[in-house]
C-alpha cells in the first residue's frame, strides 16, 4: 500500500501524467454525473437534423436531431464501463493463470501457456469478432469479447513477474516456514507483483476502449440505441458531406482518451524502471504464515 502511494506520487509529479489525468478525470466526472446533467442523449428534434456546432448544441446534432455532445458524454459511460468490466474479466482470469504458470512451472506452465498462445493465434480484433460471432451481438458479448482478448497480456506479465520473484530469498523463506502454495502465491508473490500489473491495467484500458469503439464502428459492438463513440463514428461517416463535425468530434474525444491512457501507462512504466532503490518485500511487512 505504502509503495503504491509512492508510485502514485512519482507518477503525478510528471507533467505529461498531469495532463492525461486531468482529461481522464474530467471524462469520469462527466460520465458519472451524466444522469443529473441537463442533457438527453435520446431526445430527438427532427427539425434540427445534422446541424453543425452551435450555442445550443456544442457538438451539433445527428441524423435524428439528437444532441451529439450529450451522446458523447453518455458514450463515455459506455466506453469507461466496458473498459472497466473488460479489464476486470481479463485480470480475474489472466492474473491467476500467469501466477500458477510461473509459480508451478513444468507441465502446468506448458499447458497454460499453450492455451494463452491459442488466444494469441489471431490478431485481437479478430478474436473479439469470433467471440461475438458465437454469442451474438449484445452488451454482454462486447464486454466478454474485449475481456477475453485482454487475458493473454495479464497472464504473460504476471508470469514474467512471478518467474523473477520465484527464487528470491523472501519467497523461499515463506515456503521454508511452511507456507502453502496458495498462501505463497497469493500472499507473498502476488503483493510484490502489483506494479507491472497496474501498468498493464492502464495499458489494457486504452486497448479495451479502442476495441469496443472498433467493434461498434464495424456494427457488431454494443447494439443501439446505447450511445457509443464507435457507433457515432460509424453513423457520422455516412454524413461526411452534410455534417463533417459529426464524425470528427466524437472521434477526437475517443482519441484524446486513448492518448491520455497511453501516456499515463508510459509514465508509470518509466517510473517503475527508474526506481532503483531496493524494495522491502511486502511479505515481510505483513507478518508470517
Amino acid at each position, binding site marked *: 500500500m505504502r509503495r503504491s502511494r509512492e508510485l502514485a506520487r512519482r507518477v503525478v509529479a510528471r507533467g505529461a501524467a498531469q495532463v492525461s489525468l486531468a482529461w481522464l478525470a474530467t471524462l469520469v466526472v462527466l460520465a458519472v454525473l451524466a444522469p443529473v446533467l441537463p442533457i438527453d442523449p435520446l431526445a430527438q428534434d427532427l427539425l434540427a437534423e445534422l446541424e453543425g456546432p452551435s450555442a445550443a448544441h456544442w457538438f451539433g446534432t445527428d441524423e435524428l436531431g439528437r444532441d451529439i455532445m450529450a451522446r458523447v458524454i453518455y458514450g463515455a459511460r459506455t466506453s469507461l464501463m466496458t473498459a472497466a468490466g473488460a479489464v476486470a474479466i481479463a485480470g480475474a482470469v489472466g492474473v491467476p493463470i500467469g501466477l500458477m504458470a510461473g509459480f508451478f512451472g513444468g507441465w502446468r506452465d506448458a499447458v497454460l501457456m*499453450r*492455451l494463452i*498462445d*491459442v488466444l494469441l*493465434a*489471431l*490478431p485481437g*480484433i*479478430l478474436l473479439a*469478432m*469470433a467471440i*461475438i*460471432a*458465437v*454469442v*451474438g451481438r449484445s452488451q454482454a458479448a462486447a464486454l466478454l469479447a474485449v475481456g477475453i482478448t485482454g487475458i493473454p497480456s495479464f497472464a504473460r506479465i504476471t508470469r514474467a513477474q512471478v518467474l523473477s520473484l520465484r527464487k528470491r530469498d523472501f519467497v523461499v523463506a515463506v515456503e521454508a516456514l511452511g507456507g502453502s502454495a496458495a498462501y505463497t502465491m497469493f500472499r507473498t508473490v502476488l503483493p510484490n507483483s502489483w506494479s507491472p500489473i497496474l501498468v498493464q491495467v492502464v495499458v489494457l484500458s*486504452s486497448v479495451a476502449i*479502442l476495441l469496443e*469503439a*472498433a467493434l461498434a*464502428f*464495424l*456494427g*457488431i459492438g454494443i447494439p443501439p440505441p446505447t450511445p457509443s463513440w*464507435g457507433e457515432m*463514428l460509424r453513423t*457520422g*461517416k455516412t454524413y*461526411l*458531406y452534410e455534417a*463533417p463535425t459529426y*464524425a*470528427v468530434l466524437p*472521434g*477526437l474525444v*475517443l*482519441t484524446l482518451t*486513448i*492518448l491520455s491512457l*497511453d*501516456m499515463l501507462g*508510459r509514465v508509470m512504466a518509466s517510473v517503475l524502471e527508474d526506481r532503483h532503490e531496493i524494495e522491502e518485500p511486502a511479505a515481510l511487512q505483513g507478518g508470517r504464515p
Partner: protein
Amino acid sequence: MIGYILRRLAQLLPVLLLASVGIWAMVYAIPGGPVGMILGENATPEQIAALRAELGLDRPVIVQYWAWLTNALAGDLGVSLHSRQPVVSLIGERLPATIQLGLAATVVGLLIGIPVAVASALMPGSWLDRALSGWSALALGVPTFWLGILLILLFAVHLRWLPSASGYVPFWESPIEMLRNILLPALTLGIYVSGIFARFLRASLVAELRADYVRTARSKGLPERDVVGRHVMRNAMLPFVTIVGLMMANFIGGTVVTEAVFTYPGLGRLLITAISTRDYPLIQGCILVILVIYILINVMVDVLYAYIDPRIEYA
C-alpha cells in the same frame, strides 16, 4: 536448416490444432447449433432429424471434427449459407485485395518509420528526438478509423483529389488507378505501423550505437556516415526484419477496420458481412484462413531471422 523449420512447425502444431477445434466448435456453441443455423427456428422435428442425419451430426463428435478437418485440409471449407458459393472461392476473391493493402501499408510504414527512427537515434535526447517520439506516440494512439475519416474529409470531401471509397485495382492492371484507390487506406494503416517501426528501430539503433565496434570504427577515423550506414544500420536492421514481418502477418486479418472505413473489398469486409448475416461456414473459413496464414508468416519470419543472423543456432 530444414530441421529447424520442421521443429518450429512442430511447436506450432498444437496451437493450430487447438485453434482449429475452437473454430470448428463455433457452430456448436451458437443457440440451436448447426441445425438451427441452417433451418432457422421454425423447423419441424422431422426436418431437424433429417438434416442431422444428412450433416452427420448423429456421429461421434471426434468423427465429425475429423471429417471437418480433413475437408478443410483438402481445401473444402463448405458452402456459404448466404450466397451458396464455395467459401474457398469467396475467400480467394478477397485475399489478393487484402494482401495488396497490407504490402502498400508496410511500404508507407517503412518510408515514414525508418527516417524517423534514424533521425531520433542519431540525436538521442534532443528536441528533434522528443518531437519524433511524440509522433510515434500519436501514430500509435490515434484510432485508424478516425484517422481514415480525417483523411477522407481532407482528400476526398474537401480537396476532391482521391475517391472516398476505395476499390480493389490489381497493380498490374493499372498502377495509377491502383495508387489512387489504395493511397488513403495504405496511408491510414501505414501511419499506424510507422509508429511501431520507428520505436523499435530507434531502440535497436541506440543500442547498437553504444557497442564497442562503433567506438572502434569512430576512433580509426571512419566517417560517421559510414559508421551508421555500413555498420550500425546493418546490425540494427536484423531484429527490425522480425517486426516488419510480424506486422505483415497482422495485416492479413488486422486490416478489417481500415477496410470498413474505405469500404475496401478485402478479407476483413467479407468477415464482417459474414458475421452480420450469421453465415457461419464463411465465418469459420475466413478465420481459419487468416489463422493459418498468420501462423505461417510467423514461422517464416523466425526462419528468415535465423537465416540472416548467423549468430542464431538452429542446428
